[in-house]
């Protein structure tokens, strides 16, 4: 019998389906993957070091650039951490607005996920449809904060500016539109037999493996563990809303896809409730112009779109944080990549990259 030899294939950093600049070293035996090693750092900008050199207020726009698909959630996480550190009470209206924009951004981010998974599997039309509908959300954000990607809308102590009546009206209109386009994705992607056969039973992770890799977000919920910080911590005004934690069963790519797909409905539900119950009042707490939080440290986490987004801030009493550490969900989730690729084919590895849904801005920080 002829012996076989394995070989190494470098996927990325310049590759159509590595979501930016991820590089994965695949050890291959023919088309079968023996091991996959993610190599990152191509987008490392030293955000943590930069935040040490900026004041607390100046740090907010940098968090936009971590996970640039869901900037609102990053702003939210950072501002919550600073508020906890400085002991700022956020008015209720601001919390409601924050939840509205964060959940809208979650929808947008999950739409990007659906689209990028579709194009990685070759269905480019599906991607264009999701991007068409994401555009509506970006337009809403453009209306309310004046930017489409890097919002810098949630500020320490509240939000930058109050929402306009026009925004509320348009958001309602968008929410009516949600089931419509989701039905379309169902027709073109979810119901498609080729799509199903590409995802079902692929990159399966058991609950134990997912936990041992410390995965969070939709990746762990796909295995059936209802670990959603919005429920577990009940931060902000989330306890007031009625929503379910979507979980999968098998922990394969199909479940990862379905969890995100159904989370869009849940997020839409939250936005609807928040809009209905939007209280009157100030949208910004009284924050001193020069913010000097007392000496101390804080670890605060929120549910980002990709998992648990934590900010660890140490203050030495000056205007600048002494140390900021960001617990980036996709960075930690990347640990599961090897287990998700091992034993599958090259084609599945592409689906696995997508299914983790890493964002290199966040991974490399």
């Amino acid at each position, binding site marked *: 019998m002829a012996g076989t030899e394995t070989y190494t294939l470098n996927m990325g950093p310049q590759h159509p389906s590595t979501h930016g600049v991820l590089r994965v070293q695949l050890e291959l035996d023919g088309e079968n993957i023996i091991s996959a090693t993610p190599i990152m750092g191509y987008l490392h900008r030293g955000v943590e070091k*930069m935040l040490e050199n900026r004041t607390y*207020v*100046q740090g*907010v726009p940098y968090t936009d650039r971590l996970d640039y698909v869901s900037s609102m959630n990053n702003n939210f996480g950072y501002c919550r951490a600073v508020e906890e550190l400085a002991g700022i009470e956020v008015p209720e209206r601001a919390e409601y607005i924050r939840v509205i924009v964060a959940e809208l951004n979650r929808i947008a981010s999950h739409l990007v996920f659906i689209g990028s998974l579709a194009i990685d599997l070759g269905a480019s039309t599906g991607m264009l449809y999701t991007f068409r509908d994401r555009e509506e959300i970006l337009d809403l954000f453009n209306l309310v*904060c004046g930017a489409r990607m*890097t919002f810098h809308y949630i500020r320490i102590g509240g939000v930058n500016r109050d929402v306009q009546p026009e925004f509320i009206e348009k958001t309602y209109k968008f929410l009516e539109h949600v089931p419509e386009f989701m039905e379309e994705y169902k027709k073109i992607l979810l119901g*498609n*037999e*080729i799509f199903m056969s590409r995802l079902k039973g692929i990159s399966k992770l058991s609950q134990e493996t997912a936990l041992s890799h410390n995965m969070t977000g939709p990746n762990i919920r796909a295995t059936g563990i209802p670990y959603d910080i919005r429920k577990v911590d009940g931060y902000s005004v989330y306890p007031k809303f009625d929503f379910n934690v979507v979980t999968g069963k098998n922990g394969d790519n199909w479940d990862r896809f379905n969890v995100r797909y159904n989370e869009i409905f849940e997020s839409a539900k939250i936005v609807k409730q928040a809009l209905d119950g939007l209280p009157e009042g100030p949208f910004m707490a009284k924050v001193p112009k020069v913010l000097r939080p007392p000496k101390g440290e804080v670890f605060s986490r929120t549910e980002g779109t990709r998992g648990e987004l934590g900010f660890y801030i140490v203050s030495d009493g000056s205007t600048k944080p002494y140390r900021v550490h960001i617990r980036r969900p996709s960075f930690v989730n990347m640990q599961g990549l090897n287990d998700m690729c091992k034993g599958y084919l090259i084609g599945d590895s592409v689906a696995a990259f997508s299914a983790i849904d890493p964002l290199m801005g966040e991974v490399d920080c």
Partner: protein
Amino acid sequence: MFGKGLITGMRVTLKHFFGKKATFCYPEEKLPMPERFRGGHLKLDYKKCIACQLCSMACPNGAIELKVVTDAQRKRHLTSYIHHMGRCMYCDLCIENCALHSLHWDQNYEISAYHREAFDYEVLTDSDREYLKQVMEAAAANPAPPIVPKKPVPPKPAEAAKPEKEGEKAEEKTETEGKPNE
């Protein structure tokens, strides 16, 4: 039955083949930008500006470079206001920090350029410089009396000056930090 989903998918694409398109012919049709839109060049209402430099201090990236002169009446005026757009994050902090609301975006998003030099945008216009000249001349004609230092500096103003000093330091630091990131 296998294939039903495929046919449904094909129906969707066929529907869109004949349906309305979602894109525009961009340079001919432009989308209106909302009033809060942040983007484009900075626009300065020169007559309002008191050259307090708060905008350049608020900038996290040190993207605003100012040159200030003091006229004979000890009023400060800007002689040059350079907006380094290549460094700018469009975070809006400069505009929010402007105490007199003299700074705005011009909301023109067509600011791409072929060369890096084009991103160092001079905000002041010729008419602003003309105005500056007039003001300087007027002030020179009517100078303020010189300050006579009487006592050693009392401690209170020193404290008040402290945050500004720190802010300046921050600006210096961010500039040195920012440069390698270009």
